[in-house]
């Protein structure tokens, strides 16, 4: 048994290196000024070049008002929080129903709730843009939040459904037999038990929203920049190991990093996201 633990550690260590280490060169690149082929380290650093460039570069550019990083960051946060709250609010009753009831057409409903995840966002996005213009909400926060609901809602429903499935209905039954109303049973018994799952659903909804590129790109029409749409422009035109792109990548990664630390601390469970994304109750 001891040997297998050792090799497990090795496997995991290698994996940790594979997935964590690639960020290191970007940290170096973000402080570089010139890093051209075939140099293994930058030929010049940001602090050497300050003042000689026609406009601020690298971190200086990102943190200047010109880059638009501040508004993009705020937009991403605002839209992400609004989307995840709204999605959870709408998903909650549906998830409860799906977890508790069997009914005709359930499979069709489940299927319908799943389809938005795999239909190309491009498919929804173009028609949605035309609709939203008509409704006067294209290129507004409202429009983007509503657009983000499409990829987020299916996950929220799924996460919360599995939360309710894992919840033993006996507790609720007991509360009901002890005289609690349906509403009371839900609020006093069910809700506290699903709260960790709900928090995870909110965090996950936020992450999805913060990662959406195409729908934001289409609906915002260049009017509202978020971190992904901003990063897209840089990757599209950036060289490998370009300082500004590297810096932006690190900034774009920051919310996820915070999320990871938070969810570890909150749930004490490194795989909480996974547990709650299951369609099927794994215990069966």
């Amino acid at each position, binding site marked *: 048994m001891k040997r297998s*633990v050792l090799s497990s550690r090795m*496997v995991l260590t290698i994996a940790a290196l594979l*997935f964590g280490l690639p960020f290191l060169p970007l940290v170096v690149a973000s402080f570089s000024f010139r890093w051209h082929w075939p140099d293994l380290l930058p030929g010049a650093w940001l602090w050497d070049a300050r003042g000689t460039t026609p406009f601020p570069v690298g971190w200086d550019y990102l943190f200047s008002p010109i880059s638009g990083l501040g508004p993009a960051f705020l937009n991403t946060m605002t839209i992400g929080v609004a989307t995840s709250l709204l999605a959870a609010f709408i998903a909650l009753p549906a998830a409860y129903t*799906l977890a508790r009831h069997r009914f005709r057409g359930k499979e069709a409903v489940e299927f319908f709730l799943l389809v938005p995840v795999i239909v190309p966002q491009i498919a929804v996005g*173009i028609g949605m843009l035309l609709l939203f213009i008509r409704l006067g909400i294209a290129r507004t926060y409202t429009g983007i939040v509503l657009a983000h609901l499409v990829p987020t*809602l299916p996950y929220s429903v799924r996460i919360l459904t599995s939360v309710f499935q894992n919840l033993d209905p006996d507790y609720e039954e007991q509360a009901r037999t002890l005289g609690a109303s349906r509403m009371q049973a839900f609020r006093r018994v069910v809700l506290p038990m699903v709260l960790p799952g709900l928090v995870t659903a909110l965090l996950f909804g936020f992450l999805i929203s913060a990662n959406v590129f195409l729908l934001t790109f289409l609906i915002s029409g260049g009017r509202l920049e978020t971190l992904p749409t901003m990063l897209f422009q840089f990757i599209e035109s950036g060289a*490998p190991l370009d300082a500004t792109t590297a810096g932006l990548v690190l900034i774009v990664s920051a919310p996820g990093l915070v999320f990871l630390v938070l969810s570890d601390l909150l749930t004490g469970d490194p795989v909480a996201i996974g547990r709650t*994304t*299951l369609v099927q109750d794994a215990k069966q």
Partner: protein
Amino acid sequence: MNKARRRQLSIFLGLAPALSVLTVLFVGPLALALIQSLGYAPIFGVREFPTLRFYTAVLGSTRFRLAFWYTMLYALVPTVLSTIFGTWLAVAARARMRGVRFLSFFVRLPLVVPYLVGAALVVALFANGGLVARVLFAVGIIQNTGDFPRILFSAGGWGIMLVYLFKQVPFTFVVVSSVLAGIGPELQEAARTLGASPWRAFRHVVLPRIFPGIVTSSLLVFAFNFQSYEIPLLLGPGFPGTLPVEALRRFQLPTIARRPEAMAYVMIITTLSGGILFLYLRAYRRWERSRGGV
């Protein structure tokens, strides 16, 4: 009100918000796309409803055929690989040992960053003038950038698939880990005590129990890869693009009267992905039922 009616009502009320929101936001745009693809698109100056000519134009093109096969390739290969490696990693990391939390933090890092971050990392490392090529050049293995295998911007799509793997091995890892955490190590250890080899213990005791998790994660992974737009656009060969890339290209056609072709693409992609998902789920349900029957 009788009990059955009340139950029906509560089912209806429970589902109504989610279903109506998705109907408006999701079915509405698709219906618009359908109508435009059939020739009613005054916005593009097209009023010949109903016509199938936009569909025949799309389906008859080499471009579509190639785009379809490359979309399948870029979607399937990472799905299979990330399912295998992610599951393996989850099983390997399961041994109770110190440092799992710390190490798994790095494995989970890709999960929480946008795909675009993965694209930036792959470019920095695996471009022909990227860091890996520079190291190989420095130690004399390659003489110039052309000797480095072409990972980005090639039809092989290695760059695209690397980004997917970067994100999806951790995803599978997390999903499978969570299922594993639910079943506890006792069964497997019991099987081992009874003389089963590690592989047999995994195959007959662990695998059947984590299978639902594997189905779920692979389904989501495939679904995402099939519809991904920005990664194939940024790291693909340009021609052929994947189906979503081609769809948006059609939408940006300078010949505005041909833009309903984009809508035809959209409807075809929707049908394809919906069909694949449906078949996959149905196959899984059948398998599940047959297992339940034993």
